[in-house]
């Protein structure tokens, strides 16, 4: 299913594992040269590490990073929407950093993060826009007339290929608000957008007011992915992103995100990143 090193859906951890393995295997272990002597910093270092990593992958996993065998790299824009304090930022924090803060600071404006998941022969890189929950700030971000004035909206859901609409299972209002968001997305966003509904705070089952079945049947009626999640316990957090990744069209060259197709200067985090050539599409 996944590369063995990506089973835990923690690409960063996976990369670290690879780096460690690379260090151990390819850096001289005798006393003449220590690891410290091999310069893996700067441009030369990045190149060097890249070739070490490629050699390592090829040898251990019989994967060649240098050609199409590794498969596609897709970059998608995903936006999180939902009422204030339903746990949008917490879901992102759990997904991207594996952390949870009981009292997550309220998001003002929109926060931007990235995370990568691997499935089959495809690497899906999410550009995640985590938005403020409060109405007036959201209006500020999304209002239609703003498109003309400031062309801001396209940077949020206009260009988004995926959305997670979040509600809090202990609060009915947030579920109604989520439905409004779904409608809005169906009306405004690109027709192929993949929408997932997340009933968050599933760990607070004793305070539940939104029934699982109700949300499930609503999701079925509207063609949404649906999971109950808990950013606190990590339940279904990776899973919902993975489900989205699976459902996203990975062959449509026009589905590319805004940032896709260009090489990032860092170039030392994701193994596949350097393969991203100059194409404008999401996939290669």
């Amino acid at each position: 299913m996944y590369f063995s090193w990506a089973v835990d859906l923690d690409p960063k951890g996976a990369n670290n594992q690879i780096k460690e393995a690379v260090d151990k295997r390819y850096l001289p272990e005798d006393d003449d040269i220590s690891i410290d002597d091999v310069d893996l910093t700067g441009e030369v270092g990045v190149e060097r590490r890249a070739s070490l990593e490629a050699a390592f992958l090829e040898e251990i996993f019989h994967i060649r990073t240098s050609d199409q065998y590794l498969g596609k790299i897709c970059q998608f824009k995903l936006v999180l929407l939902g009422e204030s304090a339903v746990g949008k930022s917490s879901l992102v924090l759990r997904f991207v950093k594996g952390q949870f803060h009981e009292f997550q600071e309220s998001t003002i404006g929109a926060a931007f993060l990235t995370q990568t998941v691997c499935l089959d022969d495809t690497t899906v890189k999410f550009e995640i826009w985590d938005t403020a929950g409060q109405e007036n700030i959201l209006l500020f971000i999304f209002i239609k007339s703003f498109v003309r004035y400031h062309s801001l909206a396209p940077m949020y859901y206009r260009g988004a290929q995926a959305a997670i609409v979040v509600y809090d299972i202990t609060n009915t209002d947030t579920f109604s608000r989520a439905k409004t968001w779904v409608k809005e997305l169906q009306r405004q966003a690109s027709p192929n957008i993949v929408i997932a509904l997340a009933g968050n705070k599933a760990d607070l089952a004793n305070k539940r007011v939104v029934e699982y079945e109700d949300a499930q049947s609503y999701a079925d009626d509207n063609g949404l992915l649906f999971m109950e999640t808990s950013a606190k316990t990590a339940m279904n957090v990776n899973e919902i992103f993975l489900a989205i990744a699976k459902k996203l069209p990975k062959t449509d060259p026009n589905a590319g995100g805004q940032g896709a197709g260009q090489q990032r200067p860092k170039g030392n985090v994701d193994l596949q990143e350097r393969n991203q050539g100059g194409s404008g599409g999401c996939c290669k």
Partner: protein
Amino acid sequence: MSEYLVVLTRRAVKWDKVVDPQHRTRKSIKVKRYCRKGIPSSQRAQVWFDISGARKRWKHGQGVYKRMLDSTKDAQVVESIKIDLHRTFPENIHFTDDLSSKKESLFNVLSAYAHYNPTVGYCQGFNYIVALLLLVVKQEEHVFWLLDVLVTKRLPDYYSSGMQGLRVEQGVLDELLWWKMPALAQHMKTIGVDIAIPTTKWFICLYTDVLPTETVLRIWDCLFYEGSKILLRVALNLLSLNEQKLLACNDFVSLCDGFKNVTKSSETVDCHNFMETCFTVPGSLPQRKIDKLRSKKQEMLTAAVSTS
């Protein structure tokens, strides 16, 4: 940091000659200059209250704050404030404990203000602003009037519904960027990163929870005296200090990440030096030019809204 202590001591001696706890501090060229160089923390509460015009409003509005506190509250507004109470500086000891009086004060000021000024109501971001005000200014009532002065006098209509003033401000900043740093402006345009992406929180929160606290207080020293132009100066300074790094970001993702690091650069911690560069690095920003840009952007916005 010890260098900064020397600065603070020197400033405190100078301020002692201008501030008299028995009397209102009057505005003057000298006080304006002093504000730019930083108000000592012991006198900050009083000076803010005096120079911002909050004292005047407080004097004319005797009893208003108490009336607002006692008035019946809109349940939805109360709810949205309560949601943010424990999400405001959750790591600050004054706001962690549920029994903490500051948390209660935070609720009091926010809900009183939302009902005093219902067209603005409660806007996320106020929670950070009021929390920081409460750490400096002890009386809730003074904080209430300082917030009022900010919202209705010192800042151009940032928070009313639709937040038009904020859009205009970002438009102005964009124009200033083309004027002062055309290479960066062009770079952002090419990559497709709008100035609103990094700066929305900067303006809404007046840099709280964005820059180091001492630096924010120094910005506010100018804000309460001079008004919102300092916010533009700070933004231009931040962008200018990081211009080369931002120009090196070649795609959307890395440029967005680059903007995140702009507020974390070491220059922002050295607040005295940072404030000095805010006045020197962006160079001259004539108020007349800003006013002109503002009305131009305002017209564009009005036209866009009315035709859509």
